[in-house]
């Protein structure tokens, strides 16, 4: 019970912190995804206009737009969180306070992630309603939505752990943001966030399926669009990555802490 209270209070405080600078939050988190969505919207609309056929790799224009609308919504929940402050906290010695409190650093960040997800889910929900209202997203069943949402949450845990991992590298590296930008760019291409994976060579997608990338966007989109995907293998692969990352993060945290100098304390 006392443990739950610690977590709950941290989630509440993080919520207040996340929403303290509302405009900043919007510009930093929602803004880029929104711009990205409109770029893709225009891009695909003009590709279809130029194209002789009405169908590209099984996608009509409407389906393609609906694909990207789902990509937008899913990215809010799955890839919204970035542990931006984590590496800076380490580099500037700000984690010292967390090392002293009887509540662990990872617990604090996980609670902060949970509250962040609360906000993101709310925003994703509103966006979904809006997209269905203007009919970019056509009908979906509650069951499909629930499955897709649960899968996306699982993916978001994976993404959180990946961000945490890159953040922890600050124990060794002076700057980790470049790593995160690289990861972001690679994942945008390989997750199907710009181009559906059907447009990639088949052998390439086969390899890709063992990496976590397709599960960041392509898989959840397929689930949401009611298409046939192997849910079990998706869950197994993402869960394996999650378990692997937990071990790796634990290991590098322990190693990193031995190097930690608490600069300026």
């Amino acid at each position: 019970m006392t443990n739950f209270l610690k977590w709950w209070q941290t989630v509440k405080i993080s919520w207040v912190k996340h929403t303290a600078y509302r405009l900043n939050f919007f510009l930093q988190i929602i803004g880029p995804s929104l711009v990205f969505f409109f770029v893709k919207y225009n891009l695909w609309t003009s590709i279809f206009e130029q194209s002789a056929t009405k169908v590209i790799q099984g996608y009509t224009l409407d389906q393609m737009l609906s694909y990207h609308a789902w990509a937008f919504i899913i990215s809010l929940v799955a890839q919204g969180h970035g542990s931006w402050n984590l590496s800076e906290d380490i580099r500037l010695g700000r984690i010292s306070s967390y090392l002293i409190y009887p509540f662990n650093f990872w617990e604090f960040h996980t609670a902060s992630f949970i509250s962040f997800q609360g906000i993101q889910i709310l925003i994703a929900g509103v966006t979904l309603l809006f997209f269905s209202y203007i009919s970019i997203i056509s009908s979906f069943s509650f069951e499909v939505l629930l499955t897709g949402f649960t899968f996306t949450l699982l993916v978001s845990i994976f993404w959180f752990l990946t961000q945490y991992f890159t953040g922890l590298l600050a124990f060794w590296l002076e700057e980790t943001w470049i790593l995160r930008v690289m990861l972001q760019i690679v994942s945008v291409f390989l997750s199907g966030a710009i181009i559906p994976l059907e447009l990639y060579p088949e052998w390439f997608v086969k390899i890709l399926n063992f990496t976590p990338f397709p599960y960041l966007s392509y898989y959840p989109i397929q689930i949401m669009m009611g298409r046939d995907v192997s849910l079990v293998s998706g869950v197994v692969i993402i869960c394996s990555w999650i378990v692997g990352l937990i071990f790796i993060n634990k290991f590098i945290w322990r190693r990193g802490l031995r190097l930690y100098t608490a600069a300026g304390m």
Partner: protein
Amino acid sequence: MSSDTVINVSQLCKKFVSFKKEPGIVGSLKSFFVRNPIEKIAVNNFELKIKKGEIIGLLGPNGAGKTTLMKMFTGIVVPTSGELSILGYQPWQRDKQFRKKIALVMGQKSQLWWDIPAMDSFTLLQKYYEIPEDKFNERISHMSEILEVKDLLHIHVRKLSLGERMKLELMASLLHDPDVIFLDEPTIGLDLVAQENIRNFIKEYHARTGCTIIITSHYMADVQALCERLVLIMGGKKGFDGPIHEFEKVLGNEKTLSFSFSTEQNPEAEIWKNYYPEWDEKNRSVELRVPEEELRDLSMKVLQNLPVTDFATEKLPIERVMKTLMENPELLKERSND
């Protein structure tokens, strides 16, 4: 280790390794391929025993290793070698029970969450430290009254002045009634009144709870007011460990005595000869170094025979000792060789 020893340090060492980097882009590229490690020994074979209820002043110039010691004591950094035990725990293992028994206040770094009112941070800490509701309320009301911060509890921390924030930082770190408190420059950057407030608060808190306190500060007034025992660290090594009145005499038992006169005096006069006089430009005031046993006689003599308008003995003898030692660290070596 006897039962009332709270901190036990033996042959403690901490070595930091950093890499040399030349300035500019070329330097960055170079250091990417060839890294020249620089080893720095921050703490070297340090020994210390502290008993329950003591207030220790940990002194030393910048870069002497004070903060590194504090970081090791609180489990923030891991010692390279040696023994360190606090309340029977090894700090670097960061046992949750250990963390519940200590507190750290850093004058240079805020521990309160910047974007929320202090009271929200306190509530969070209440949950972290599992403080019962009644105790929590009692401590908040008691401390906020003494520190006169009742009206500040619900204001965003980022909007407070440094002095106000420091008081709240102190409160935050004492809410869980810690057994050992580490104060790292708690009065840095504060005005004189705020410094004194903080000092008085710490004094009162210590008297009431009997906790053990380790304090570092560059303000000798802090040390003089709070500490009975001083530990001096220089170049990572212990230079002095003992009662404050002994530290004052570390360079001999001389006191500084100063006089101001209404008329110009003769600096060459016989009376000043043995006391290393330092005169001002107009020869109207002088500072003397006088052996303690001659202090009374000399003062009387000067007061009776010369037109004295003001006289004083130094207020903070440890400040002079500290300054002399910092400028001439070799004095300490000579002393320990004696």
